[in-house]
């Protein structure tokens, strides 16, 4: 898998490059700002871009803006956005435009190497990887919508789906049987009135409905 990294701190840029290379990904470019990121994406057409939110010249949300540009111009490039702090408003921006192959994680998560590499693979494969912090923030916001129809356990399952976990992952985390998880997932789809299309697509739709975007 070919990856482009945009991160203004040399320390982290090198660290991420090493981390991803060790994880048997190919880092084709590592750049320090959004402008060079767009150039690198155009040049290399990578499978995935790892993007820091706060980069030169404004040091605000350049990374989010660049991610949205990439999604519009190169819809096949998966996006994994990293930040020192996760904010609900950034997540909403990102998820409004990008409904699949998208991740938004706290930078701390790179320290859990295997989890992080899993998230990279998941996002590259068309899934989502949202930081539990983001999910928690988004969850608090919605209270009076179809979500109220879900039982606490179903909400918990949906929350894990939003983080990007597979059924297998959810089984492991909640210590329940695979058939129970499947039942929860089916209930969620039903209660949220989701059309009977492919499971993966329904999963994404459920997550988006859940996030209210």
């Amino acid at each position, binding site marked *: 898998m070919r990856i482009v990294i945009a991160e203004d*701190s040399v320390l982290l840029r090198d660290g991420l490059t090493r981390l991803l290379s060790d994880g048997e990904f190919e880092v084709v470019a590592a750049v320090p700002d959004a402008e060079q990121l767009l150039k690198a994406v155009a040049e290399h057409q990578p499978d995935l871009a790892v993007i820091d939110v706060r980069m030169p010249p404004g040091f*605000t949300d350049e990374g989010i803006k660049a991610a949205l540009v990439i999604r519009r111009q190169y819809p096949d490039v998966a996006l994994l956005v990293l930040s020192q702090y996760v*904010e609900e*408003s950034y997540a909403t921006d990102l998820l409004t435009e990008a409904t699949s192959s998208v991740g938004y994680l706290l930078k701390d998560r790179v320290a859990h190497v295997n989890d992080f590499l899993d998230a990279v693979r998941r996002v590259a494969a068309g899934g989502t990887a949202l930081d539990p912090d983001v999910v928690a923030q988004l969850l608090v916001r919605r209270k009076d919508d179809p979500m109220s129809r879900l039982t606490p356990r179903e909400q918990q399952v949906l929350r894990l789906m939003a983080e990007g976990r597979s059924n297998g992952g959810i089984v492991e985390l909640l210590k329940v049987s695979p058939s129970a998880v499947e039942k929860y997932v089916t209930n969620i789809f039903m209660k949220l009135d989701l059309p009977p299309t492919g499971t993966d697509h329904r999963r994404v739709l459920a997550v988006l409905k859940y996030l209210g975007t």
Partner: protein
Amino acid sequence: MRGLSLYFCVMTSAELTASRLMTAVAGPLWSRAAWRATKSVLAALFVATIGTALVGVIGVAWGAAIFSLATGAGNIGHIAVYVAAVIVGPVVELWAVQGVTALQRSRLRTVAGTDISAGSRTERKPWPIGPWLSATTWRQIAFHLLSIGIGAAAVVVAICWLAPALAIAYLIVGAPSAAATVSCIGAVALLFAAPWLAQFVARADERLARSLLGPSHTEELALRLESLAKSRAEIVAATDAERRRIERDLHDGAQQRLVSLAMNLGMAMARFTDVPEPVQQAIAEAHEDALLALSEVREFIRGLHPAVLNDRGLKAALSGLAARAPLPVRLNVDMPQPAAPSVEAVAYFIVSEALTNVAKHAQATQAEVAVTRDGDLLRIAVTDNGAGGAVPDGTGSSESGTGLRGLMQRAASVDGTLTIDSPPGGPTVITAELPCES
């Protein structure tokens, strides 16, 4: 030998006394202060003559015109002239008063080195009626009429300086007599008195100008208030800017380094699975500590100045805040345009601390935050359904009370107000109103 030395001693001391006396009496004659004062009073004489003449003559002419009209004198042509004079008089007088005031101020500044500031700008009133209703104008007129007294004193000062010359002239012209001797002694006395008199008159002039041309007590207070408000706003803005700078520095420095450290330790954990158990454990502990430090730094920065406030404004920052609160918070932000950054920061921290307070002390199950922009006022209301009975406390004896006190101080730092309505049994409503111009 001993006597001689004593004699010298006495002589020296007597000489010293004499020279001191000379310095004390004659010294002022060529002291800078004396000359400066003399220059100043002579300039005062010059300007006061012009000023009093101009202001006085115009005033008298105006009064005469009114008097003539009242007594009904003259033909139609005269009446027309009088009416014109009555109408134009106040305007011309105002010009004269303000012109001479400016002249006096510049004279005091350049010659006497005394800067007498004009009143506060808000005191300015529309021409030509406004200034006549203001005490400032009448005080200026009083100064111009009184300043001829200073002028007269200045003439006396001049005479004192010139007294010896006059005495000499008198001696040359007249025959030596007892009167001449007396006048000579008198002239010397006057000369020695001149520096003192000059300085006295100069001081009187300054004092008069300060009390009549300077700002009145109310104006002075208004000016002071203006400058205090300005300097406080500057301090608040500077503190705010400083917090942003520290936030940036931490973000670019410590935070990145901690992430890198945690990442390296994470990579070591993943890679070195065959090292002895204690080593693995040590790495795992270090890894955990690094992550803990990272989240502590992040929380610290959030308390210092949340970056999202810079990037996305108050609404986005508050929505993050509401989302992170340990209890459900309904958020309602209605502000079409952003407020000044320092006001937004204060608003953010008020909501942040109010929600912390609610979570800690109110025993509430939900809260509501409403922010509305009402003209030049940013209104913030934080409501909870808790137990109520919250009272701000300056003594620091209760934690919640101190928190509320802190909220009030935050609001006051930008000239805002904060009220707490918390009847026993609730609900508690904390309302802050912050003035915002931008």
